C-alpha cells in the first residue's frame, strides 16, 4: 500500500480557485450572476472608452505646434497651453516683468511647504510670513528698490486667484471666529448684529455680493473716489467666507461640554483667556474637516470673479479661447486649469487630514 505523505502545509492550503489572482477575481468580481454581469459590462465600457481617451490625450495629441496643426490633428491640442501658457498664468501682467509674479508664487509655495510642519509654528514663523508677504507684495507691485511699478489692475491669472483665495481665507478665518463668538454672546446688541450679518450673507449667493461690490457699490461712493476693483471683490469674498466659517465654528463651540466652560471659569480665567486657552483650541480642532471644506469651496468660488471681468485664472483662459486661432480647443485649456485647481484643492484637504491625524481630532469623539 502506497502511502502519500501529505505535509501539514499542503493540508491547510485552500483550493487553487480561492487563492491568487483567480481567487481574488472570483471573490470580488464574479461572486454571483449579477456581479459577473456588472463586471463584464464595466470592462466593456472601459475597453470602449479608455483606449480612445488615451489616444486623444497622448498618442494623437499635438504639443508644441501652431494652431493650424491643431486643426489637422485628431488628438488633443496641447499647443493651446504651450503657446499661451504665460498669458494663462500671468494674464495682463507686463510681459517682460513676469518673472516677478513667478517669484512671488514660488515664495508663497515655499512658505506654505515650510509651515506644513507643526513643530515650526513659532513666533518666528509669524515674522517670516509677514516678511514673505511684504516681499511678495513688493514683487507684484514694485515701485521700490528699482522695481518698476505695476498697476494692481494688471494683476491677473494665477497670482490673482491665489491672492483672492489666500487673503480671503486668512482674513475670513479670524473674522468668522469672532462672529461665532459674537453670536453666542449674552449681550443682545452684539448677538443680534452677528445673527443679522451671518444670516444676511448666507441668504444671498456669492455672485450677488460680487455684483453688489462691482456694480452697485461704486454708485454710492462720492464722485471721483473709486476703490480698486480687486479690493472690492476681495472684501466681498472675505465677508462671504467669514459668515460660513462663523457657523462652522459655532458648531464646534456648542460641542464643547459645559464642564469645560465652568472649569475654566473656576480657575478664575477671564473671557479672553477662557476662550484662548481652553475653549477655542478644542472647538477649532473639532471643526477642522468642515472648515477645510469651506476653505476649499472658497478657493474654487474665487473663479466667480469672472462675471465682474477680473482676469483670474479662468478668465485668462477664456480670453485665450476667444481668439479665433484657439477657439475650438476649450476642452484642452479647461483640463489644464482644472488640473491646477485640483492640485491646490487636493493639497489643502491632504494637509487637513495630516493635521487631524496629528491633533487626534477624530479619535476622542
Amino acid at each position, binding site marked *: 500500500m502506497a502511502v502519500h505523505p501529505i505535509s501539514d502545509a499542503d493540508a491547510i492550503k485552500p483550493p487553487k480557485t480561492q487563492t491568487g489572482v483567480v481567487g481574488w477575481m472570483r471573490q470580488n468580481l464574479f461572486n454571483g450572476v449579477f456581479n459577473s454581469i456588472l463586471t463584464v459590462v464595466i470592462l466593456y465600457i472601459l475597453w470602449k472608452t479608455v483606449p480612445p481617451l488615451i489616444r486623444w490625450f497622448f498618442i494623437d495629441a499635438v504639443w508644441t505646434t501652431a494652431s493650424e496643426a491643431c486643426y489637422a490633428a485628431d488628438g488633443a491640442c496641447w499647443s493651446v497651453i504651450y503657446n499661451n501658457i504665460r*498669458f494663462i498664468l500671468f494674464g495682463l501682467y507686463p510681459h517682460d516683468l513676469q518673472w516677478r509674479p513667478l517669484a512671488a508664487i514660488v515664495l508663497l509655495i515655499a512658505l506654505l511647504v515650510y509651515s506644513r510642519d507643526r513643530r515650526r509654528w513659532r513666533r518666528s514663523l509669524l515674522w517670516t510670513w509677514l516678511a514673505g508677504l511684504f516681499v511678495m507684495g513688493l514683487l507684484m507691485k514694485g515701485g521700490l528698490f528699482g522695481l518698476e511699478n505695476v498697476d494692481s489692475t494688471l494683476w491677473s491669472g494665477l497670482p490673482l486667484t491665489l491672492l483672492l483665495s489666500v487673503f480671503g481665507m486668512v482674513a475670513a478665518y479670524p473674522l468668522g471666529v469672532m462672529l461665532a463668538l459674537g453670536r453666542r454672546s449674552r449681550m443682545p446688541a452684539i448677538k443680534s448684529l452677528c445673527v443679522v450679518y451671518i444670516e444676511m450673507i448666507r441668504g444671498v449667493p456669492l455672485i450677488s455680493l460680487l455684483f453688489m461690490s*462691482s456694480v452697485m457699490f461704486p454708485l454710492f461712493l462720492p464722485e471721483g473716489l473709486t476703490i480698486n476693483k480687486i479690493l472690492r471683490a476681495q472684501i466681498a469674498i472675505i465677508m462671504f467666507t467669514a459668515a460660513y466659517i462663523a457657523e462652522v465654528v459655532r458648531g464646534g463651540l456648542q460641542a464643547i461640554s459645559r464642564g469645560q466652560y465652568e472649569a475654566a471659569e473656576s480657575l478664575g480665567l477671564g473671557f479672553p483667556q477662557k476662550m484662548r486657552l481652553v475653549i477655542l483650541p478644542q472647538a477649532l480642532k473639532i471643526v477642522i474637516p468642515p472648515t477645510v471644506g469651506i476653505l476649499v469651496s472658497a478657493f474654487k468660488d474665487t473663479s466667480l470673479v469672472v462675471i465682474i*471681468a477680473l482676469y483670474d485664472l479662468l478668465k485668462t483662459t477664456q480670453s485665450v479661447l476667444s481668439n479665433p486661432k484657439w*477657439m475650438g480647443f476649450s476642452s484642452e485649456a479647461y483640463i489644464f486649469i482644472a488640473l491646477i485647481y485640483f492640485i491646490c484643492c487636493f493639497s489643502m484637504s491632504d494637509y487637513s487630514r495630516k493635521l487631524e491625524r496629528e491633533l487626534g481630532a477624530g479619535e476622542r469623539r
Partner: protein
Amino acid sequence: MKRIGLCVVALALFTLLAAPAMAGETLDAVKAKGFIQVGVNQGLFGFGAADDKGVWRGLDVDTGRAIAAAVFGDATKVKFTPLTAVQRFTALQSGEIDVLCRNATRTLSRETSLGLNFCQTNYYDGQGFLIPKKLGVKSAKELDGATVCVLPGTTTELNAADYFRSSGMQWKPVVIESTPELNKAFFAGRCDSLTSDISQLAGVRAVAPNPADYMILPEVISKEPLSPAVRHGDDQWMDIVDFTVLAMINAEELGITSENVDEMLKSKDPKIQRFLGVNAGNGKALGLDEKFAYNIVKQVGNYGEVFERNVGVDTPLGLERGLNALWTDGGLMYAPPFK
C-alpha cells in the same frame, strides 16, 4: 417742518448727483492723472481682447488709444478696464472709466435714461445669417422653413423672430445656451443657419473646419451702431471723443495714413493743412493741441488702417468694409468738415 427737511435732503442729493455734470471736468481730471481710463470688452477678438503678451488689441482698443493720442500726443497714455456687458454702463456712470469703447449699441433708452452720450459710431454692425454653402441659398429671403441656431433670451432671438414673421416665412429656432455649444451644433449640421451679429458670425466662420464652405448672407436684419460713450453733461469731453473718431475717418477720406502723414504736412491743400494743424484753429477749439489729428493718424492710423489691422480681410475675422466703408465708397463713414 418735516417736509422742508425732506426737500433740503432731496435737493442736496440732487446736487450731489448732478455734480459730475460740469463742462470740461473730465478733460481736466484726465490731464491731472496723466492717462485715460478706457472701458473695453473683456474678450472679444477684433474689438477688445488681450493678446498672448497681455497687450490689448482691437478696434475699440485703438479708438481708446486714438483719444489718448489726441489728448496727450501719446497713444500709450491709456489704461484699459475690461468690463462685462452688465458692468459697462455703471462703470461709466460711477466715473471708474472716462470713456466706454466696448462695442455698445447706441439706442434711445441708453442715450436718455441711462444718462450717456454716444459719440461717432466706430463700427456699424447688424444681425445676419451664416449658412453652409451646400445649402444652396443666396439670400435670407430663401430661408423659409429653415432651422436656425440662436442663443436664448437675447435680442438676437427676437430680431430673428420679427424678421421671419414680417417676411411671412416659417422658421424653427434651435435654442442653445452657450456660444461654443451653439457653434458646434451648427458645424455638426443640426441647423441650416446660425444667426448673430455679423462681426461675431465672421469669427465663427473663421474657426469652421473649412471656412470656405460657409458664407454670410447679404441681408442685415437689425441695426447695431457700435459707438464709444461718455457721461452726460460734459460736452467738451464728448466733442473730443467724437472728433477723435471723426478725425480717423476724415484722415482716410483725405488719403492720409500713418506712413504718409509727415509728407502730408507739406501739402498745399487747405483742407489737409487745417486738418493736420498746419493752419491752427481746430485744436484750440476742442481744447487740445493743434496737432491732435496728426498725432492720431501718426500713432494709431486712419480708420481704414485700424479696421484692416483688427477686423479686416487679412485678420482671422476677415470682415469686408461693407457699411463701414467711407461714404465715397458706398458706406456710412462720413465726417463733417474739419474747420
